[in-house]
Every structure is written in structure tokens, then in C-alpha cells.
């Protein structure tokens, strides 16, 4: 065991990963506490998966230090491998085997005694509601079922930490919600640390703490609540007849920064929108065509910190393309 703080199950210090030309991970430092849900949030290519791959021993690091459960990632690989469960971004099941067989192989790989393995297989399948399909070939599963089976498999050897790399990638919104339900349920029933990544902002709100990562660097790390407080209030979006005049007026009364938003609208933040709006409309010098106020989301936080939006639309088209390509290659 190590001399580091006992509450931290993962310690990452000054981690750098340099591929031939690009610095995928650029000097990041963070720690994950025992039994928390820790989230990595950022656009595609931000370095989330690279970091996870280094922590889970699949990739070597260029420099820095990674300690997991007291073990050093570059020297005690097998010890680390025993205490982590992985759900990868891309499916990693053997689809010519049945669900039960996939679990059986996993059990053999992790040296789980046969008797114990049977009991545990039933237990994890039950948890993700796949008991009635346990003898079907994985080939016949839907995307959501495969992902659920992967979560079940990742839990089979009772890991201390479960890594979920984009667990909802390529799934439809309904299935995505279900997957999160399972994760929340899992957190309630088991003493386990969960480390997840996502580029879907809303989904990471279940995390205890989130690291926002962009271009290989962590640009913010806090609880979702505190991150949203960066914004400093509610977000108001207005469509008016004369934006220039309206901007001057808003600046006069609030003094906040005003941004141009989509579809000719303008956007700014105020502390308390419910008391601000009635007064604002009454006194506005220009005609307001529409006004809306909402609580800030992590999307707004990302926008605020980087000046860019996470291009969810583009990303998901690319993801579906990739999934389709994989499907095609099978034939």
C-alpha cells in the first residue's frame, strides 16, 4: 500500500500521453475518492478515453504518475487489473457466445471459483434484467442489451472501481435513460467507485464530481452544482425587434456580458429570473417577441469555459456512422 491519502482510490499526477504528433493528455492531475461517481466530461477527442486506457493498464503513459488502489499503474498491472471492471466505449463481447458463456469466460479470466461464478452470473444478469435471455447468442442482442450485459460482466469479479467509457454511446434516448437507471441502482446497492466518461452533458449530472476536460487538459473539476454556479444564475434568451438597442438597455440595468445566440437571439445571465423578467418586460424600450429563462446546464458551463459548444449533433452522427461501419464489416 502507498502513503497517499486513504480516501482517494485513484491518484493521477501530471499525467502526459504523447502520441506521435498530438499530446492527447496534457499534464492532468486529479483524484477520485472511494465510493463516489466521478465523471469525465468533454467533447470527442478531448483525451477521456486515452486517460482511462492509461489508468486501466491498456496504454502506457509518457510521463506522470498514476496510482490506483495503492498500486502503481506501470509496475503492478495485474494487481490493478483484478480490482477494476471495464465497460468500453466499443462493445467488447464475443457475440458468437451466449450471455452466460461470456460471463463464464470472464469468470475464468478473473479466477472466480466455478461454484461462486454460477451464483454471481445469475446475480449480475438479474441486476440488468437479462436473466430470460441468458442462453441467447450475444449476436441476437440489441445495442442496449449488449451494453447491459457488459455492465453485468464488468461487475462479475466484484471490482472496487467500475469504469464506464461512454456507456450510452450509439444508443437511443430511451435506452440511454435505462442504462443510467441501472448505474444509479448499482451505486445504491453496492459499495463501488464509478468512473465514467460522456460527452452527453445532461447525463453526467448523476456524478458526485465532474472533471471537464478539453484538448487534453482539465479545465474545471467540481460537483455539478458548483460547476453550474460558475454561470452565476439563470440563463435568459430573448428574441426582440431591435437587438442592438436592447443590448444597450440590458447592459445599463444589469451590467452583465451579453452573447449572441442562435436564430438571432441574445443570451445573458441573471441571478433570479422570476423577479427579473416581469420588471424587465414592463420597462423594455423595444418590443420583445419571445423570452425564455432556464436553469444553467453543464452545456452552458462548457460553453462558458471554452467559448465553444460540445458539438453533440456532429458527434452523434459520427458515432452512428462508426457503429454502422462496424456492423457492415461483419458481413
Amino acid at each position, binding site marked *: 500500500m502507498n502513503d497517499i491519502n486513504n480516501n482517494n482510490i485513484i491518484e493521477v499526477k501530471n499525467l502526459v500521453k504523447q502520441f506521435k504528433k498530438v499530446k492527447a493528455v496534457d499534464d492532468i492531475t486529479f483524484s477520485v475518492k472511494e465510493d463516489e461517481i466521478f465523471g469525465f466530461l468533454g467533447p470527442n477527442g478531448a483525451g477521456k478515453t486515452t486517460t482511462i486506457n492509461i489508468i486501466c493498464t491498456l496504454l502506457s503513459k509518457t510521463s506522470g504518475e498514476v496510482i490506483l488502489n495503492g498500486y502503481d499503474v506501470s509496475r503492478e498491472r495485474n*494487481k490493478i487489473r483484478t480490482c477494476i471492471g*471495464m465497460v*468500453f466505449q*466499443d462493445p*467488447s463481447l464475443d457475440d*458468437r*457466445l451466449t450471455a452466460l458463456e461470456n460471463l463464464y469466460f470472464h469468470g475464468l*479470466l*478473473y479466477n472466480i471459483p466455478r461454484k461462486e461464478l454460477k451464483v454471481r452470473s445469475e446475480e449480475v444478469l438479474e441486476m440488468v434484467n437479462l436473466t430470460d435471455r441468458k442462453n441467447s447468442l450475444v449476436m441476437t442482442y440489441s445495442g442496449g442489451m449488449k451494453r447491459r450485459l457488459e455492465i453485468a460482466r464488468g461487475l462479475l469479479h466484484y471490482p472496487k472501481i467500475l469504469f464506464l467509457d461512454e456507456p450510452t454511446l450509439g444508443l437511443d434516448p430511451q435506452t440511454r435513460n435505462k442504462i443510467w437507471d441501472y448505474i444509479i441502482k448499482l451505486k445504491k446497492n453496492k459499495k463501488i467507485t464509478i468512473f465514467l466518461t460522456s460527452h452527453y452533458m445532461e447525463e453526467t449530472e448523476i456524478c458526485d464530481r465532474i472533471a471537464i476536460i478539453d484538448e487534453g487538459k482539465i479545465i474545471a473539476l467540481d460537483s455539478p452544482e458548483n460547476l453550474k454556479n460558475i454561470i452565476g444564475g439563470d440563463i435568459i434568451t430573448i428574441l426582440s425587434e431591435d437587438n442592438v438597442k436592447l443590448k444597450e438597455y440590458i447592459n445599463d440595468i444589469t451590467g452583465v456580458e451579453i452573447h449572441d445566440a442562435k436564430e438571432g437571439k441574445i443570451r445573458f445571465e441573471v441571478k433570479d429570473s422570476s423577479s427579473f423578467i416581469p420588471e424587465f418586460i414592463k420597462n423594455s424600450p423595444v418590443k420583445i417577441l419571445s423570452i425564455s429563462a432556464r436553469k444553467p446546464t453543464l452545456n452552458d458551463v462548457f460553453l462558458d469555459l471554452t467559448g465553444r459548444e460540445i458539438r453533440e449533433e456532429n458527434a452523434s452522427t459520427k458515432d452512428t456512422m462508426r457503429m454502422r461501419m*462496424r456492423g457492415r464489416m461483419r458481413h
Partner: protein
Amino acid sequence: MYTIWLRDIKRYFRDKPRIIGSFAQPILFLFVLGTGIASSFSTFGGGGGKEFLNFMFPGIVGMTVLFTSFFSAMSIVWDREFGFLREVLVAPISRTSIVVGKLLGGSTIAMIQGSIILLFSPLLNIPITFLIFFKVLGIMFLVAMTISAMGIILASVIKSMQAFQVITNFLLMPMFFLSGALFPLNNTVEWMNVVSKINPLSYGIDAMRFAILNNSALQLYPMWLNITVLVCLIVILSVLGSFLFNRQE
């Protein structure tokens, strides 16, 4: 190690089309191409058609072993493509045992396939006794291990399915043609003779032919040389294979 082996075996028996399909090629070679060439002997003068078929038979057994073990080892590329490899790589088992498991898995399947081809021997009036069968089985194992180890080296170096196709055309087919499986190598042109000497499969086919036909007239190298070459290759190639597979990015 056992796990990796077991998975290969399970997948093999589950994949019925693959089992049936894998007999199509040897049967095609033996009964269509073989019979065709054998009967053409009389067209161009000269006899020995039947002898040619007998000559070719061990070659076809060798071919079956070659292709089966190579493709089994190359399934690593397939597993990488479809992600399953990561499941294995992140498990607490050493890279070396993955490689050994894969070698044994590929060899077992190749030996099963080769043995089934041996069952056709009565059709050619080639007597196979138990003793011969076990001798051949041993040689099949050596050949399969050599080729599997070669496959693992290639699978560790190349990462895409496209490259895999290229390898099949530019390495596997020449290896097969220049191994003495289809025609005797001692009476061909000089360059073929040279190439066949550096082809590991030549030694396997030669050993297999002697074990099956027990005809020293067709033998190119002494048995001990064949076996030594194969065993040395297995050791060198598997060590190299594990080393390459172990390399971390």
C-alpha cells in the same frame, strides 16, 4: 491460457458453416484440381496419374493445417477489430499466456480439421494405420504451432483487416504453392528450389508425406531435419510473437 484455448474451441464447434466450408477447399483441390491434373498426364504423354493423386494427398492435409492454424491465429486481428481483445487484455492474466492459449487453440482446431481430411484416404487407397495416424497428428501439431506463431507475429504487427487480405495473397498462397504440396520440388527450376528451402512449410509437408505414404523416393529431407527445423521455428517464432504481442503502445 486454458480459457483462451477453450474459447477458440467453443467458437469453432459453434460455427457449423465454417466447419463445412473449410472442407470445401481441400476437397476441391484434391478431387477436382488433383483429378484434373492427374488425368492430363495421359494427354501430354506419360503415366503416373494415380501416383500424382497419392503424392498430393499429404499436401492437401498440410494445406488444411496451414490455412486453419493461420486463420485461427489471425483471429486476433478480428478480435481487435470487434473489441473483444480488450476484454482479454484488461484481465489479470499475462500476455504470454494469451499467446500460448491462442497457439494451442489454433493448433487444436487445425489438427481436428487435418484429421478429418485424413478420413478421405480410403478413397485414394492410402492405408492409414493407427501408428501412421498418430505420427501424422504429431507432425500436424508441429506445423500448426509454427504457422500459428507466424500468424500471431503478423497479427501483432498489422492492425487492419485490409492488410490481412494482402498477407493472405502475398504470403500464404506462395507458401502453399512453394511447399511441395502440389508438385515435387526436386525437379523444378533453381529459384523455386531455393525459395522452398526457406519456406517452413516445405519441411512440414515433407515430413507429412513421408509419414503418410512411407515412400522414401518422394522424401527431400531426412525426418530428423524436418522435425528439428519445425521445433526450432516454433521456439523462435513463439518467443518473437509473445514479445511483439507484449509491446504496449
